């Protein structure tokens, strides 16, 4: 639920509740005031009559109006005090029942008791009350409507910079090589948000840059001594007086140095993939890469007398050229390496998946561990044990699913592209 909707829901409910409550109270107060006024009028009429009688010792001549009239009747009983009464009568002119308010009191004129009733129609009061209530309800409706419209427009406008900020955050990637630069805003809260985000990305970017330069420098610092070892070995090999035994030892040093540097490069690559330093924003022709990689290895395949069958459809993916090459390099290398001589490698590429299957030398690999770093089955020879881990990481980065299975004495690696 949007903040605005939530706020509106609460706001409108509260407003309606307040207004209804207010209206009810208003009605009763108004009713009370108007009734009191009515009674006041009746009472003043009473006083006028009493006053007249006291002065003239006779009943006044009574002027009746449509809304107010007085009746006088002789009476033997005497009301101890004036009494109000509600009653109603039929108004012939308007053809409706009107409620009236009556004030009854007794008066003695020249020894004769009279019961005087002062009547006043409540129609006027009721009309007034109705009108006032109507106006009030109209006003409430108008206020609600305007409130809603203003809120919607104003709040939408007020939140606009917030959405701009969100859009910018979505676009942002720390490997864009600069911290987020959100503009200053006139609204304090949003400005605070932008400012905090700017500061946060600044510090994230700093850490990221430091980490990146550390890995790069570390790699440089490690590769340099390795390079020295290798060039010294190349030089040593040229010395003709070396005994065969020394040569073998030198070569095993070279092997180790080469392994170390490969291991190091693989780990560095894994770190880079994990840090998402590769942006998948290139169109990559998958079929072309696979066929190229096969061609590059034609001599190896021939020497081992392997049979390669391919069934590839044209497929271009949103990917990273270099990573795609590494991915298929590794898959193909594994297939070639672990297929026995005269064996079969089958590669299938469709719109939705790519599948590498090859005849197995031994039994199945451990399904749970096959993609783990440094996982080496006993017959794997001298690999780094990182090839499949790199494949897995690349798939993970691209959102592909990779599954290993073993059927028909074949290793099968199937990569499911995004569904």
């Amino acid at each position, binding site marked *: 639920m949007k903040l605005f909707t939530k706020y509106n829901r609460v706001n409108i409910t509260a407003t309606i509740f307040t207004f209804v409550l207010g209206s009810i109270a208003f009605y009763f107060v108004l009713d009370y005031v108007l009734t009191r006024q009515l009674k006041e009028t009746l009472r003043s009429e009473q006083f006028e009559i009493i006053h007249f009688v006291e002065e003239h010792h006779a009943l006044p001549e009574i002027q009746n109006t449509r809304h107010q009239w007085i009746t006088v009747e002789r009476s033997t009983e005497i009301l101890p005090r004036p009494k109000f009464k509600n009653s109603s009568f039929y108004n012939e002119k308007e053809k409706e029942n009107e409620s009236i308010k009556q004030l009854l009191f007794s008066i003695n004129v020249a020894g004769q008791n009279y019961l005087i009733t002062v009547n006043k129609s409540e129609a006027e009061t009721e009309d007034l009350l109705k009108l006032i209530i109507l106006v009030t309800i109209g006003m409430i409706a108008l206020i609600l409507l305007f409130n809603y419209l203003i809120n919607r427009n104003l709040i939408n406008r007020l939140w606009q910079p917030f959405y701009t900020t969100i859009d910018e955050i979505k676009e942002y990637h720390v490997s864009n090589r600069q911290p987020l630069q959100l503009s200053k805003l006139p609204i304090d809260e949003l400005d605070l948000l932008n400012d905090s985000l700017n500061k946060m990305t600044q510090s994230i970017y700093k850490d990221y840059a430091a980490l990146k330069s550390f890995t*790069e420098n570390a*790699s*440089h*610092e*490690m*590769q*340099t001594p*390795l*390079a020295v*070892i*290798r*060039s010294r*070995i*190349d*030089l040593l*090999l*040229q010395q003709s007086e070396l005994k*065969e035994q020394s*040569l*073998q030892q030198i*070569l095993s040093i*070279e*092997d180790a*140095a*080469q392994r170390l*540097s*490969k291991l190091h*490069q693989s780990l*560095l690559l894994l770190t880079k993939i994990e840090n998402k330093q590769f942006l998948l924003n290139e169109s990559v022709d998958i079929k072309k890469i696979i066929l190229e990689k096969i061609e*590059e*290895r034609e*001599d*190896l395949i021939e*020497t081992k007398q392997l049979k390669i069958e391919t069934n590839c459809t044209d497929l271009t993916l949103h990917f990273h050229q*270099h990573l795609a090459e*590494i991915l298929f*390099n*590794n898959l193909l*290398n594994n297939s*070639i*390496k672990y297929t026995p001589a005269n064996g079969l490698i089958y590669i299938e590429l469709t719109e939705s998946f790519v599948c590498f299957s090859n005849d197995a030398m031994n039994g199945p690999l451990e399904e749970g561990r096959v993609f783990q770093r440094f996982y080496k089955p006993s017959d794997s020879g*001298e*690999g*780094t044990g990182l090839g499949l881990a790199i494949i897995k990481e690349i798939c993970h980065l691209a959102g592909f699913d990779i599954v290993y299975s073993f059927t028909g004495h074949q290793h099968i690696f199937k990569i499911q592209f995004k569904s």
Partner: protein
Amino acid sequence: MVEFLSASGYLCESVLNFKDAVEKIEVYDYDCIVLDIMLPGGSGLQILQYLKENHKTDGVIIISAKDSLEDKISGIELGADDYLTKPFHLSELSVRVAAIIRRNKFQGRAIISAGEIEVDTMGKSISIHHQNVELTQKEFQLLLFLIINKNKVISKNAIAEHLWGDDMDIASNFDFIYAHIKNLRKKIIAAGGEDRIRSIYGVGYKMQLP
């Protein structure tokens, strides 16, 4: 590096920091400069920029441990001719240097001769006693590699890396190299050439040339 390249018959000079490098390239014109990106006192890329601004035509090979793609791209954009990542075999460097010198001096059309074998580096073909010999691409690469590093022991690792690149650790199965060498020898002898490829047992191969 200097020792190895000097032994290959190049005249080599080396400097160890940015300032000396700039001084040297101001004074001399080199056929080929091997440039490390991380220099004390500055970046190798700045030197490239300097060369470009002054319209120097020295060939440049960048050497770096940073196999960051960005460095590679900016290096090539700035006019580097080639890019090697550490660590590499000296024999590999030697081939790259030879290629750049060929490209700059002879527009790539150099014929390299090794005894009776003549290698046309542009046409990627060889002839023995002026007679064309058909080689596969890998065999040609291997032969050129051995000839340029003539009279040097080249380890199998170095050959594997040259032929199949860095990312192909299957080549550590040296049978492939043996197969290529065997075919090469056969073809050379069949064309009436002398087999000058010496096997150094367990180590590698060496092109024995006078």
